[in-house]
C-alpha cells in the first residue's frame, strides 16, 4: 500500500469517527463502529484493528476524551466524546475532504 493511500484512508477514518462522535454525546468503540457501518450502509466496516489504534491516536492528539461508563445493559465500556479541539479538527478534516472530493469530481467530469 503506497503512503498516499494510507494517508487518505487514515484521514478518512478519523473524519468518520469525529463525525459520528459529533452526532452523539458519547459512544463506545462498538457504537462508533456500528454507527459508521450504518451511515455508510455497510460500505465501511471498521474492524477493531483499525478502530482502536485510531481512537487512541486521536485521544493522544487531544481530539477526543474517554472515560469508563456503563452500557444500557449495565456493562462496563469505555466511552469516547468529542473535545473542543476535536470539534475544530472535524471542521478542518471535513473541509479538506470536501476539497479532495470536489477535485476528484472535477477529474472524473473532464472529457
Amino acid at each position, binding site marked *: 500500500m503506497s503512503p498516499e493511500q494510507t494517508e487518505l484512508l487514515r484521514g478518512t477514518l478519523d473524519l468518520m469517527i469525529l463525525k459520528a462522535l459529533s452526532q452523539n454525546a458519547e459512544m463506545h*468503540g462498538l457504537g462508533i463502529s456500528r454507527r459508521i457501518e450504518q451511515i455508510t450502509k455497510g460500505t465501511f466496516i471498521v474492524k477493531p484493528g483499525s478502530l*482502536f*489504534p485510531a481512537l*487512541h491516536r486521536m485521544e493522544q492528539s*487531544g481530539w477526543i476524551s474517554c472515560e469508563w461508563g456503563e452500557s444500557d445493559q449495565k*456493562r462496563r465500556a*469505555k466511552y469516547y466524546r468529542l473535545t473542543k479541539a476535536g470539534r475544530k479538527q472535524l471542521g478542518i478534516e471535513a473541509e479538506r475532504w470536501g476539497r479532495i472530493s470536489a477535485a476528484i469530481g472535477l477529474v472524473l467530469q473532464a472529457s
Partner: protein
Amino acid sequence: MSSARIRSFLRNCFRRNAIEHDLHAELYAHVELLAEQKIKEGMSEFEAYRAAKIEFGGMEQVKEQVRATWTGAWLQILSQDVRFALRVLRKNPGFLCVCIVALAVGIGLSTAVFSILYAVILKPLPFPEQDRIVVGWKIDPSKAINDNTRQLRDSQLVELSYPDYKDWREQSTSFEELAVMPTTTNGNSYILTGQGEPKQGRKFESVG
C-alpha cells in the same frame, strides 16, 4: 508537541501497567458487547462469544497496533530491544568476549594512530605567526639540475656552514632575524675551527 501529547507521553512512560490494564479491559469489553448483541440476535451464549471473538480478530495484534500509536512507543520499543540484546549477549559469553575485544582493539588502535598523527603532522609548531617563518638552504652547484623540470631535489640542498650563516646574518635585509637549527636530512655540516665543541650559532631564540 501539544500539552495533550506531553501528558499522554508521561502517562505512557510512568503508568504503563495501568494503561495496559485499561487497554485490555477496553478491548475485552468490546468483545462482550459484541457477544451481547449476538445473544440478542438469538445465538446461544457459547456461540455468541465464539462468534464475537472471531469477529474481533486477534486480541494481541490489536493491542500491538494500539501500542504503536502511543506517544513514546519508540522508547518502549528501544528498551525492549536493549533488554533483548543484553539477554542474548548473556547467553553467548564467547561472542560477548569477541565483541568486547574487537571494540577494544579497534578503539585503542585508532586512538593510538590518531595520537601519533596529531603529534607528528597535525599539531602546529609552537611559534606564533608561522606564515612568516621560512627555512633557508643553499644549493650544491656540483649537483646541478640536469633535467628540465627545474625542481629542486633534497639531494641538491645543503645546509649553511656557520661562516655562511654569519655572512647571511650580517648582510641579508629580507629577514627580521636569522637562526640555525640542526637537521637530519642532510647530516650536520658544521665547520669546525679551533678547539672545543662545535658552535651551533644562535638557536631558535629569534622566534621563541
